[in-house]
């Protein structure tokens, strides 16, 4: 762990990513303390609507006079909740499915992978829109829509990785020693492919946040007055370019968070993926 952190610290881009993500987590946890107008998550002050950034409202106010800075902080909670839960569910579905399909051969294995192929054949955003539209706008439905569309990525990845190492001597040795298939999969194969899963998960977080914001932008995310970033940008369109801050700051927040996860994911891949490390050494 320390080795990983040390390696990450040497990679400036990854370090920036890590800092951005830590800032997101801090913003989400400390939102009530950091926000200047905590009540503005639900309260409106029409008299000061569309005020530009200033000492009273650091990032300006929105169409109802609510403080954008405070709403962004509370919005981080929603963003993080959606992304973490959706990815966790996707991992919990995709990883076992990939492991089982990769370890066993035959009709069942093929069936599992063909199902994931069907999901992958439809563009994720289209599928997510269809699910969210059918179920109605809410945080739970966004999570469901994202989980249902993202699990095949992990299933595919784990399937391929499992296939590639299931004939390795250490796996064969475990089987020869009489380990049950469950034990082989969970204690021998899974740890060996965990770095790929971690990297995919980190990078996937960025994509999930972007898709969640897209759903929010389209009005399929959590309903108002929830301070969801994507919907805030959608609301701001009507007031551009006069109230530029209304769209700019939520947009910037999404940009930084997605970039943070991508940078960290790239850094983790460089650190964790032994093939990449080897390739880098040989390159030298």
């Amino acid at each position, binding site marked *: 762990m320390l080795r990983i952190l040390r390696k990450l610290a040497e990679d400036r881009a990854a370090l920036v990513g890590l800092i951005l993500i830590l800032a997101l987590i801090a913003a989400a946890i400390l939102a009530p303390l950091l926000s200047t107008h905590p009540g503005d998550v*639900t*309260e*409106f002050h*029409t*008299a000061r*609507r*569309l005020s530009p950034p200033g000492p009273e409202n650091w990032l300006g106010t929105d*169409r*109802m*006079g609510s403080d954008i800075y405070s709403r962004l902080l509370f919005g981080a909670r929603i963003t993080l909740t959606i992304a973490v839960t959706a990815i966790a569910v996707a991992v919990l579905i995709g990883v076992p499915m990939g492991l089982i399909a990769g370890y066993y051969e035959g009709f069942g294995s093929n069936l599992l992978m063909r199902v994931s192929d069907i999901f992958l054949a439809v563009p994720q955003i289209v599928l997510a829109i269809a699910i969210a539209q059918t179920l109605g*706008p809410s945080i739970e439905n966004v999570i469901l829509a994202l989980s249902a569309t993202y699990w095949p990525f992990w299933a595919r990845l784990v399937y391929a990785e499992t296939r590639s190492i299931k004939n390795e001597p250490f796996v064969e040795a475990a089987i020869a020693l009489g380990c049950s298939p469950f034990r082989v999969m969970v204690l021998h194969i899974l740890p060996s492919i965990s770095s790929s899963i971690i990297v995919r998960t980190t990078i996937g977080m960025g994509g999930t946040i972007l898709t969640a914001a897209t759903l929010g932008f389209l*009005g399929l995310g959590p*309903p*108002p*007055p929830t301070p969801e970033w994507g919907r805030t940008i959608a609301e701001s*369109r*009507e*007031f*551009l370019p*006069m*109230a530029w801050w209304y769209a700019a700051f939520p947009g910037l927040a999404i940009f930084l968070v997605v970039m943070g996860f991508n940078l960290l994911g790239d850094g983790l891949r460089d650190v964790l993926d032994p093939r990449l490390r080897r390739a880098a050494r040989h390159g030298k």
Partner: protein
Amino acid sequence: MREESGRATAGLRRRDVLRAGAAGAAIGTAGLPGLAQAQAQAQAQGRGRIAFANGSAFDTMDPHATFDVGRVAYRLNLYDGLMRWLDNPPKIEPWLAESYTVSEDGKRYVFKLRQGVKFHDGSDLTADDVVYSMERILSIGKPVTALFTPLMDRGSTKALDRYTVEFNLKSASAIFIATLHDLYVVNSALVKRNERNGDWGQEWLSRNDAGSGSYVLQRFDPARGFLARRYNQHFLGPAGLEEIDFRYVAEVNSRVLGLIRGDFQGTDPYMPQDQIARLQADPNMNVMEAESTRLFYATFHHQRPPFTDLNFRKAVSHCFDYDGWINNILGGSVVRNTQVIPNPMWGAPKDVAGYTYDIDKAKWYLQRVQVPLREITVAGMIGYEQSMQAAALLQNGLARAGVQSKLLNEPFPVVSNKFRDPAQMYDMLFLWRSTYYADPHNWAGEMLHSNRRGNGNNGYYSNPEVDRLLDQALATPDQARRAPLYEQVARIAAEDAAALCVHNGKWYGPFRKNVQGVRFCPIGDGQEMRWLRIT
């Protein structure tokens, strides 16, 4: 017309009928103000084109399929009606009609049609076309059907000769003439040729033109809009512009930027007041401004608890920040309207104080609600920023009063489908009641009468006393005697919290400076293009 024609009538006084006839006869010379001048200029210039950015999608070209202001452009420009509302304050003028008479009992109307009117395919417009159009409206079950169904039965309209039509009403109606603006006459022979399985040509007419209006449809694509070219044989003479191009542009910013850049020469005014102010500041823009009659309100679902409880409706009525809405969000551009009839309209009572934003009062009423409270749904319409913002503002007030609510924004086609089904209709919905005919009945009657439930009365409100007063008002020909009846209805509705009345809007017509001749009328929102010219 028989013995009744020379006497005072039930629907209108004799001099009104004669005046109408005289106006009709004068059309084509000087009957319609500015017409001769516009015609002369059109003929002199010969060309001119307007690209108009419309925020509502044109999903059909059937003139009887829609009944909203957002899609009024094709109805007004491709089709003619027997009568037409013009100018502001609106006046109803004979259009395809030359004159009409009304029987003593106010139930029989006989219209003389203008002769020589040609449809776009060159065929004559006759009484048979008028009869067919009315039968079609009564048969296809669209929103406009509800306007005429209470007035007459199918098969009651007759062509007395080639240019004479007789309407036989079930009972006298003071608004029949006013509603004839919406009897758009279609080319019956052409539509009949394209009927499929008794569909009254609905499939065909949804994409084709069978009108006699000032413009002929050239191209229609629901995703893009419609393009129409001047009809030089129009009975009023050629229109001022050679081509009108109505484009569907959903995004407000795209409409505004397109207008500023000169890609469009006009757009509809359904945008936040901030964007109107932005256009007003642009030296190339001419943002016309006029007092209008367009009520902004929210429905209550009167058949669904807790809205069945008057105390709950009153509590909700006290949760809306009217001053913040009018003065801050809309920048004082509209006027508070405390009851259902727009203030400038006759029949609107001046003594209704209305509800104020008062959370303490709301809580007081909530304590007296007899039915169980629950989370309510407040809906807005996607694409109509004011509707969505008002819903959000109300939600804020409701939260302060302790009423749980959730917001739901849906596009107008979805919303309008829910009107007709009380099970699907929202608990509350913010929307406008536009002017379809300049008469207090357009608001009080359409929004409150129980026979309009699901068709104007979207809150499914029902009050026998209101129904009785409205029926009495309809059967009364004299405006002076009708006015107090509508005032009484409006007072009862306010006390009954029949709807959450918010404001009466102004009309803003954003056009580029080189667009001249716009004739605003609250009915149609100034989208009749024949008067326009480009300088």
